[in-house]
C-alpha cells in the first residue's frame, strides 16, 4: 500500500499541464470520543490516507472528490478463568481491526492571500464504509474463527487549513502544494450486525466517529 501511495505521490508532479484542476495525496488522523473504540484501539484515533481530485467551479471555489481509508486494530487478550490466581493472557486471544473507507464530495474555498500561502475552508459530505473484523487462530487448520461485519453510514465534515506552495513549475502554471487542514467530522455511528447467523440480525454494537481531524497533504494544482 505504501508503495502504491508513494508512486502516486511521485506521479502527481507529472500531471498534465492544464488549468483549474488539482490532485493531492492526503494523510491524517481522526479522533473519536466514543469509548467503545477502546476495544478496537485504546487511543481512539483513526489514521487514514487517500487521494483527492478536484476542479475549480467558480472564483476561489473548487469541487473535490476524495477517497480515504484507514485501519486500526489490536491484539486482544481475554481472561478466560476468573477464578485463576493469575491471568494467563496468552491463552485466549484474538485480533480485532476496523477499516474505515471514506468517500467524500467537498467544496473548498481558497483565500488568495499571499503568492505562496493560501488559507482554505473545506466542507464535505461523506459516506463511510466501515468493516469490523475479528479472527482467532485455532490450532486445527481450517477451523479458524473469522468474523466480519459491515456498516455504511453518512457523515459530514468542516475544516480550515492552509496551503503552502514551495515550488512553481511550467512557468507558474503548475503549483506544487503542501497543505494542512484541521476540523471536525460527524458521522452517524457505524452499526454492526451479524446478518448471517440469526433470523433476526444480531446486534454487535456501534462505533461512533465524531471528533476532530487533522490532515496534511502534498499535491498539485494546474
Amino acid at each position, binding site marked *: *500500500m*505504501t508503495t502504491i*501511495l*508513494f508512486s502516486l*505521490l511521485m506521479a502527481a508532479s507529472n500531471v498534465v499541464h492544464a488549468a483549474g484542476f488539482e490532485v493531492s*495525496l492526503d*494523510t*491524517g*488522523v481522526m479522533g473519536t470520543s466514543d469509548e*467503545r473504540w477502546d*476495544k*478496537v*484501539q*485504546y*487511543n481512539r484515533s483513526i*489514521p*487514514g*490516507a487517500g487521494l483527492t481530485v478536484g476542479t475549480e467551479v467558480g472564483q476561489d471555489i473548487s469541487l473535490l472528490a476524495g477517497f480515504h*481509508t*484507514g*485501519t*486500526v*486494530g*489490536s*491484539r*486482544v*487478550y*481475554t*481472561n*478466560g*478463568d*476468573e477464578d485463576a490466581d493469575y491471568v494467563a493472557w496468552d*491463552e*485466549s*486471544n*484474538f485480533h480485532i*481491526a476496523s477499516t474505515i473507507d471514506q468517500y467524500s464530495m467537498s467544496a473548498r474555498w481558497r483565500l488568495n492571500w499571499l503568492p505562496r500561502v493560501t488559507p482554505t475552508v473545506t466542507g464535505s459530505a461523506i459516506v463511510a464504509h466501515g468493516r469490523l473484523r*475479528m479472527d*482467532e487462530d*485455532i*490450532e*486445527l487448520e481450517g*477451523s479458524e*474463527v473469522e468474523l466480519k461485519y459491515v456498516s455504511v453510514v453518512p457523515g459530514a465534515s468542516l475544516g480550515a487549513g492552509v496551503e503552502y506552495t*514551495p*515550488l512553481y513549475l511550467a512557468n507558474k502554471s503548475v503549483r506544487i502544494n*503542501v497543505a494542512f487542514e484541521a476540523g471536525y467530522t460527524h458521522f452517524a455511528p457505524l452499526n*454492526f450486525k*451479524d446478518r448471517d*447467523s*440469526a*433470523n*433476526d440480525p*444480531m*446486534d*454487535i*454494537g*456501534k*462505533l461512533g466517529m465524531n471528533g476532530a481531524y487533522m490532515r*496534511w497533504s502534498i499535491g498539485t494544482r494546474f
Partner: protein
Amino acid sequence: MMRALLPLFAIGCNPWPDLNETYLDAMWNTSIVTLDDGVYVNLEGSGQLVRVGTDDTWHVVDLDGAQPVRMEADAGKDRLLVHVTWPVCEDQSKGIKLVEDCPEAALSWETEMAIVDNGKRVAVAKVPGHLNAMTFTPDGNTAVAYLDDAQSIDNASGPLVDLSEILLVDLTNGDTSSISVGFMPRNVLFTRDGTRAVVMSRSTVVVVDLEERAIAIEYPLTLDADIEIDPSAAVLSPDDRYVMIAIEGTQDLYKLDLEVVSIDMEGLEGVPSDMATDHTFAQTIVVYGDRAQVDIITEHDFIERVSLEIDDPATDIAMSEGQAVLFNSSHMDVKDIIRVDLESKETVEYVAANPVQSLQLTPDGGYAVAILRPETEYGYGSSGLDQYQDNRWGLAVADMLNDNIVSLVLESAPVGLEVIEKEEGSFALLLLDGVDSLIQVNLAEPGNYEAIELPSAPAGIDASPDGGFTIAHVSALGQVSFLDPASGDIRTTSGFATSGMLTENTLPRRDQE
C-alpha cells in the same frame, strides 16, 4: 523540500493497525446449558444470554435489559432458569441514560430469576440473588431455592436479607412463596410423591407441605439454644417415612419419623460422611470418613444395621440398582473403590493407581469410571513408572461384572467426563485440558480408545436431553461443538460471543421505575 516531506508523509500514512494490545474480561462463560432447542451461553462481556441453535443460528434471549449471572436447567431439562440482575438508578434525570452516567449513590442492582422456554422469557420469579442453590420436586414443576453456604454468595443486597429463607418457585408461572425454615438451610429432600419437602438447617428440620406451601412439621434437633447442630448428610428412608440425618462432628444418627412425629437417635461407631438410599432392597447405606466401615440399615423402624469392615475409610457413595460403590475423595493415601452387593452384603475391593477425585457409574452399574488425581506433585517416595503415574492425572475403569480395574495415565487434567451406553457397549467420553481431541474409551477394553479431533482445546462438556453432547471450547470469540455420540460426528459453530460487544450499558426499565 521533498526529502523533508516524505518522512512526514510516511509517519502519518499508516493505514494498517499498530501493534496495540487490549485486555478484556472473558466475553463468555464456558459453563453452558444444553436444552432441546439449543445451547444457552452467558455472554458475560456484553451481559447477554444467547441461544446457539443446533442449526447454527444464534438468538439473543430478551431478558428485558437484565444481565445473566448464572443459569441452570430445570430437572427435566425443559426450561432454563436464569438468575439475572439489572441496574436501577434512582436519579430520574433525563440526561442519565447509561449506567456510568448514574451517580454511584443512586445506583443499585435488582435481581430476579427468568424462566426461559424455547428461547423466550416466559415468566419471571422474584428470587433474591443470594439464594444460590436450587433443587426440584420430582414432577419438575416446583423449584426450591435456598442459600448454600458452600457456594459463593452473590448479590446479598437490599435492606433485609433473610438467611433462614427458602423460596418455593412455581416454574410454570414464576409465583413464589417464602418460608422461614431455620438458619442456613443446607439440604432439601423430597418425598417421591412430591407432596412434601424436608429441609435441614442449623438445629432445625422442617417438613414443608408443598401443596399448602407451609410448614407442616418442625423438628428441633436440640432443646438448648446455645448448641448448634449442623446436619452434614441426610436421606429419606426407602418408604419415605423416616429422615435419617447425620450431624457434623458427631457419631449420632437422627431418625425423624414423618408419620408419628418423633425423633430417635442411633449411636454409630464413627462420624458419617455420606449416606444413600437403596430402593431395590429398601436399605440405607452409611459410610464414615474416619472409620473403615460401611453400615447397611436394613430395618428402619427400629434401626437394624449390618456393619461391613473395609480396608480404608470411604467418604462417598455412588448408587446403582442393587449395589453401592464406595470411594474416598478426601484422603490422598486411600485409593480403594469398593463395590457392595446390597443383596448378599459382600464387598469387592478395587485398588486404583491414584486417589479418586470423582466417580461415575454406567446406567446399568456394570462399570465405574473414576477420575484419579495426582498422588504427589513431585513424586516423593516413588520412582520409575510409579513416579510417572503418581505425578499425573488418571482414569480408572472398574469392571463390576468381571471384578477387575484398569488405571490409565492421562496427558493432562480432565475438563469433562461423560459416560454413555451405545449398542456397541459402554463408553467414557473424556476431555483433557489443552488436548484438541475427544477421547472415547471403550469401557470393555479401556486401553483401546478412539480420539475424535476437535477444532480447538475443550473447556467442558454438557449432555443434551436428546442424548447428544455439547462441547465448549477454549475460544475467546465463542465456540461450541455438537457431538452425536452414535456416529461420532461433530459440528462446530463459532463467533457468537461477539454479540453486543460494542453496545453501551444503557439503563434498562427506566419507564418502570
